[in-house]
């Protein structure tokens, strides 16, 4: 809550920002929480009461443990604090148990573990070099970056209202990024390996890490033209890297391999039986694909190209996670999504290999990997957009071009998170917080790059402004109409399709800018 920080000296502004957002998080304690609250309570109970061999078999609750072992250990550690708050939350059979102490403990555990995130943000801010030493503290790139990361709208509502532990996980990711930027490669690799065993969704960005480490750490030198110098390959470095990754994996998965439970763990981690899209479509390529299928179906029925009796009745947006048969377009299999994801990631990885640009290139590749897998992945959650937004913040304060892309991506990505909070007391909070973050990101980046050309052209601006009428229609006008009963999914469909356009556009724009970028001569010589 310390927006107008005037204390000029030292790092006190950072402390004020971190403290302010932590206070805000505390105020959100009584807010609505989703079923993820019960998921984590259940995991606390499982890890507290059962031996290791039962963790991935226990199925009293439908919310079985489906995160990698480190996260289970994390819950195990938390449970030993939880017992002092309310021991009843640690009973496995106490499904959907809540009490004031339980809520307070769970919420507070998220707030406290966010300290890691705050630390990581500080490390990231140190990596960003403020080219122009702005006189006004509010216009320093590091200050803007700190606000964009610490006060990130998505992270706030997903962690502190919806309830999840993304804060410290993203903290680990940003920390590994910061370490790589500081050329402390081994530490970075270690942190990222640990992160992978906390939550496996970060595998999406693993290609960027792998290639960057190989290119910059295992090969110690470049030729004069920037191409790879094969003779500079360091056996020691690759051995060290391999050792770190293997040790971390052994620590995490080893016990389950010994118990012979690895297949069970894997099957819990990758539930491919779920549908192509989440109950609410994440704004990605498949949302557009599904919408196109729907549109073609309706068109086909109107023009009598389709036989109405042959159309499956299942509605995609009925609210359940179910497999869905497309009517006109070919149905999508998990393998197909995997191939699509792989192909879309490939160019960015090639770019990282053949056009090395140091940490900047790595960050670009990281964002592109995250975005590509978000675009084409199987059963993607809308929350996964944060995986692209947070690293892109680092780029946005350094170059006007990236700032423009960032504004489009954050605004649409954050807007697509709105359906996560559907209860009426939280409606003002999500709108206010969204406005707070959006107004800040626009005005700060605009003032940071005020000497360059405008960050957004007019079609982009128009597109973003139209989110306002869309929100008004979805949240206020639509519930008052009679369509609400017959077509309850229309607001969700509109939101996800409209946001999918913006996310796709941002993805393409970033890709084009990365692929067409020419390497400055100075860096070639390195």
């Amino acid at each position, binding site marked *: *809550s*310390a*927006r*107008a*920080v*005037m*204390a000029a000296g030292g790092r*006190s*502004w950072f402390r*004020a920002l971190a*403290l*302010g957002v932590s*206070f*805000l998080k*505390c*105020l*959100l*304690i*009584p*807010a609505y929480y989703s079923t993820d609250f019960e998921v984590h309570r259940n995991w606390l109970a499982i890890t507290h009461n059962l031996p290791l061999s039962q963790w991935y078999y226990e199925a009293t609750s439908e919310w079985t443990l489906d995160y990698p072992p480190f996260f289970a250990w994390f819950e195990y550690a938390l449970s030993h604090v939880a017992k002092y708050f309310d021991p009843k939350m640690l009973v496995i059979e106490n499904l959907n148990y809540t009490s004031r102490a339980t809520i307070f403990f769970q919420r507070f555990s998220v707030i406290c573990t966010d300290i890691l995130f705050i630390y990581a943000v500080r490390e990231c801010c140190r990596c960003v070099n403020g080219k122009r030493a702005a006189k*006004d503290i*509010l*216009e320093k790139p590091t200050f803007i970056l700190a606000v964009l990361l610490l006060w990130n709208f998505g992270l706030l509502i997903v962690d502190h209202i919806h309830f999840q532990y993304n804060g410290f996980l993203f903290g680990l990711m940003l920390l590994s990024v910061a370490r790589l930027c500081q050329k402390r490669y081994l530490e970075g690799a270690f942190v990222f390996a640990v992160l992978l065993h906390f939550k496996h969704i970060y595998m999406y960005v693993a290609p960027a890490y792998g290639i960057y480490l190989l290119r910059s750490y295992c090969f110690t030198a470049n030729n004069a033209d920037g191409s790879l110098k094969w003779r500079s390959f360091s056996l020691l470095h690759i051995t060290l890297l391999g050792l770190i990754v293997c040790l971390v994996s052994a620590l995490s998965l080893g016990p389950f391999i010994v118990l012979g439970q690895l297949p069970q763990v894997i099957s819990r981690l990758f539930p491919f039986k779920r549908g192509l899209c989440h109950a609410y479509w994440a704004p990605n390529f498949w949302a557009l694909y599904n919408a196109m299928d729907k549109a073609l179906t309706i068109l086909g029925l109107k023009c009598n190209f389709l036989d109405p009796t042959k159309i499956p009745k299942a509605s995609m947006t009925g609210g359940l996670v179910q497999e869905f048969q497309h009517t006109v377009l070919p149905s999508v299999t998990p393998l197909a999504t995997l191939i699509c994801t792989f192909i879309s990631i490939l160019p960015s990885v090639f770019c990282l290999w053949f056009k090395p640009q140091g940490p900047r290139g790595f960050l670009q590749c990281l964002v592109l990997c995250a975005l590509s897998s978000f675009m084409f992945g199987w059963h993607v959650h809308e929350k996964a957009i944060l995986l692209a937004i947070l690293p892109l913040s680092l780029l946005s304060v350094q170059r006007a071009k990236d700032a423009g892309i960032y504004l489009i991506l954050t605004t649409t990505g954050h807007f697509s998170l709105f359906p996560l909070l559907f209860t*009426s*007391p939280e409606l*003002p*909070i999500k709108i*206010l*917080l969204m*406005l*707070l973050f959006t*107004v*800040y990101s626009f*005005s*700060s980046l605009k*003032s940071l790059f005020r000497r360059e050309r405008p960050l957004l052209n007019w079609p982009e601006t128009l597109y973003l402004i139209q989110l306002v009428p869309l929100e008004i229609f979805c949240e206020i006008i639509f519930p008052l109409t009679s369509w609400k009963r017959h077509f309850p999914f229309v607001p969700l469909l509109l939101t996800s399709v409209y946001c999918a356009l913006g996310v796709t556009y941002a993805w393409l724009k970033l890709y084009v800018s990365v692929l067409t970028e020419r390497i400055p001569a100075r860096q070639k010589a390195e």
Partner: protein
Amino acid sequence: MEKWSLMTLTVLLALTVRWTVSLGSYSGAGKPPLYGDYEAQRHWQEVTYNLPIRQWYFNTSDNNLLYWGLDYPPLTAYHSFLCAYIAKLINPDWIALHTSRGYESQPHKLFMRTTVFVADLLVYIPAVILYCFSLKETSTKKKASIWGVSSALCILLYPGLILIDHGHFQYPLSLGFALWGVLCLSYDWDLWGSVAFCLALNYKQMELYHSLPFFCYLLGKCFKKGLKGKGLVLLIKIAGTVVVSFAVCWLPFCTDMAQIMQVLRRLFPIDRGLFEACMFSSPPPCSKLANIWCSLSVLIKIKNVISPQTQLKISFAVTFLSLLPACIKLTVHPSLRGFKFALVSCALSFFLFSFQVHEKSILLVSVPVCLIINEIPFMATWFLLVSTFSMLPLLLKDGLLLPYAVTTLSFLSVCTASFSILEKTSAEDLQLKPFSLSLRGYVSWLKSFPKIVRSLFLLSVTLMGLLSLASAALSPPQRLPDLFPVAVSLVSCLHFLLFWVYFNIVILWDSKNSRSQKKTS
């Protein structure tokens, strides 16, 4: 960044904090049979919507005045009527006569919270923003643009008002209108200022705390212009405006003298005897209030020593005497700065020395203090912290401990960050220069004055923190069940007395200050 976007961010942040606080509990939640202020407001909606206007203030079979009878002026009643009209559209059960008594539900809470939120957004917050924009011209500091923004941030994040309005449950309208009054006066729109203040007064009679400074300032202004020429015209204009605005507010009641008398009797229940009135209007016993009488009664049982009539006389006399210096000074030398300080000191005198007081009345002092936060950031922050702390027993009863702790800490850190208050403790920063000059001959410790003040502040903050912790976490010893509330009220009363002395010193020694002359010219 531009000033406008900073101001937008400030407002958005303030709104976010308000709404998150409103997620919490409210006064009297789930506590039959009387509930609390939330139920009072709902009941007024019920009464005003269902009964004809002539019965609003009368005890009838449909309107039991002993159950949260309407005891605020007509504007409150109209406002309740307006809210009831909207409530009726959403769910008629909320305001059904008789059957809706003690109605509580999540949607209804949402509705009530929204009405407060809207009132705040429409009246109080715009006044604060405009006021802070007007600071730009008067401030001589370099970073004038950010100066206004950080003042706005601190004023809007003042925890006392947020907790009482959006937690405990109360509408910020009377304070908002009073603020509009100050705002208009600071732009020299005296007539609009008096209209706004009349609205405030007709929303809540407690605004009488502020009436003397308004009166004296305007009177002084007329004197200054010369009572035979322009001044007289202005005086007549102002008087006319006041009469007309009162008449408009009271129009439906003007048909009958009995109506007016009954409303007045509801507003000022003098015939009940002041001590009982005090007991009645503030549910907690008087001994827990940070008022001078209540604090004294911890030591001496005034009630047993002196008769109620004498109590009334004594409290009246003391209040009058305590008001006198500031008011005379303001009438003789009317200045905007003096006006703001007089608002603080008069409201504080009323709070400390008059009898019929409620804990929440400290807000009437806090809001004027907010207005001078840019002039004396250190003392204002200190006072605002103490005022929030003095309401701790009330807030604890409402289950607002978490919002109290969080908003207070964030307010402290915002003030520290935006005004760096701990470095502004010299006599000059506290506006005590003229006073210290007049003392120089007698007192030798003035050199270490900033250090002493700073350590006093830290001591007081620590004490308040410890007492808050103790009230929240410890259970009091059995022989003294009221130990913590009484300690809280004694500590705050002591603070308020010292603040009262401080503010009066600033006001009375102000004449040599050249800056004030510059502002009024």
